[in-house]
């Protein structure tokens, strides 16, 4: 168990930095987690983050990378549904980094 501090408010995370309470998430928290991951948030990054949050809202899981890649391709266009594109945005893995920034649990099936 750990804590992060954003705008004077404290949020609980697990030892890897994932938010404990999914309802704690907001864009300021997302920006803060992004800095801890050395990710510079651009419009393209937000697009993936928002996609992940919508996916979670609908299916109650964080998708595995393979599933995310395919689903992004369907929703945002084939040129974005590739691992090159997603790893370009999130070098340490879209599953791991993007889910953390999106305030979701680690993807199921991700070890």
């Amino acid at each position, binding site marked *: 168990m750990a804590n992060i501090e954003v705008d004077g408010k404290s949020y609980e995370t697990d030892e890897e930095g994932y938010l404990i309470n999914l309802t704690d998430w907001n864009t300021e928290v997302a920006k803060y987690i992004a800095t801890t991951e050395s990710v510079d948030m651009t419009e393209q990054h937000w697009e993936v983050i928002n996609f992940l949050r919508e996916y979670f809202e609908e299916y*109650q899981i964080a*998708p595995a990378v393979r599933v995310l890649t*395919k689903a992004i391709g369907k929703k945002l266009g084939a040129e974005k549904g590739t691992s090159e594109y997603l790893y370009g945005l999130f070098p340490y893995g879209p599953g791991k980094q993007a889910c953390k920034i999106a305030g979701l649990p680690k993807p199921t099936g991700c070890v």
Partner: protein
Amino acid sequence: MSDVKKFMFVNRKAPYGTIYALESLEVVLITAAFDQDVSLVFMDDGVYQLKKGQQTKGIEIKNFSPTYRALEDYDVEKLYVEQESLTSRGLTEDDLLVGVTVLSRAEMGALMDQQDVVLSF
């Protein structure tokens, strides 16, 4: 490919009362990453896992029923439900939250016999 095995997950427990349904779902999602031939069977009280309209706010347990609809994204497309189990619970195919193939008890037995690995939950 010769190393693809036929995996069958047999779900026979109602959701929430025990942890089996959720555990099975998680194992299925993980197995899906290994490109095997995966079938899911819902029979006996397991058919309740797919009942539409689950609202778990009152019992403060995560409602994992929407995740069954994500199975398609994981290329898990073989979902079988036993007819007799539905009937004896007053349920029909329309009560289920995903598209499934309904089989008779005898057909289910035959399908089970064709598997390489059967995991029961």
